[in-house]
């Protein structure tokens, strides 16, 4: 569990070398990994009934839809 602490440090140091907009992908991947550990183990999602797991996945999916659709709306607007 405490290796999540190490990933904080890793995220800070690594980002000093990356360019080309890749650092956000690295940072978010690490964040997703950390959050998954918290959800699965601290929050016992791994040991929860399937119904609960469905609710968790549904809310993540719904957020993804909202982010994706809103973003695609904006970036497909003509230059103004």
């Amino acid at each position: 569990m405490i290796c999540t602490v190490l990933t904080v440090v890793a995220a800070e140091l690594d980002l000093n070398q990356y360019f080309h907009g890749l650092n956000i992908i690295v940072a978010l991947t690490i964040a997703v990994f950390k959050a998954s550990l918290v959800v699965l183990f601290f929050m016992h999602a791994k040991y929860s009934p399937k119904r609960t797991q469905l609710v968790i996945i549904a809310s993540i999916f719904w957020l993804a839809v909202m982010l994706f659709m809103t973003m695609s709306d904006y970036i497909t607007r003509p230059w103004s």
Partner: protein
Amino acid sequence: MHRTGELFGQYKTMEQQRETASLGMWIFLSTEVLFFGGLFMTYTLNRSTYPDIFSAASKTITLWLGAVNTVVLIGSSLTMAMAVWASQAGKKKLLTVFLIATLVLGTVFLGIKAVEYHEKYVEHHIPGWNYQFGEHPDASIDAHTQLFFSLYFGMTGLHALHMIVGAGLLLWLIKESLRGRFTPEYNTPVENIGLYWHFVDIVWIFLFPLLYLIDRH
């Protein structure tokens, strides 16, 4: 009220009752995901529109304070998980110890946040309150960097508000645990407030890289 943790009429088993309580908390957390999600959306949109501004503004917040806070908060999630475990194992004294540890770490987090906010106040980076970004007053840079700082205060402020609510819940848990109310058969409040606390931690796990780690060279 579930004062003694007895089985209520609509449930077939205690197991089902417990699972239902947990599911209820998860559904509430789903609404919270969308609550914060709106702010994350705003962030995503504005950062993709003004990447350089966000980068410049982000460099002025103290990285190591945010990093320490991340460690503190994940630590508090660990102590919270230990508290839930202690309540399941019937270790009542340990339960109280871990709950107090979680509260202490949460308060440390809020204290560091207060330090950061004060820093921003001194640097004139609070939108609408003597705002000025940089050495010389420049209206267009001010207008755009204010976007970043509005999001910074909005998102961390909402998060801090959730932490304060969580701290209040923890205080209640500590009080009840001192009265010996939680047993391996009945630890539902500990578990579900634990879920809430972990959620607030997860929000910060995403806030930290998005606000503090933009293009650090």
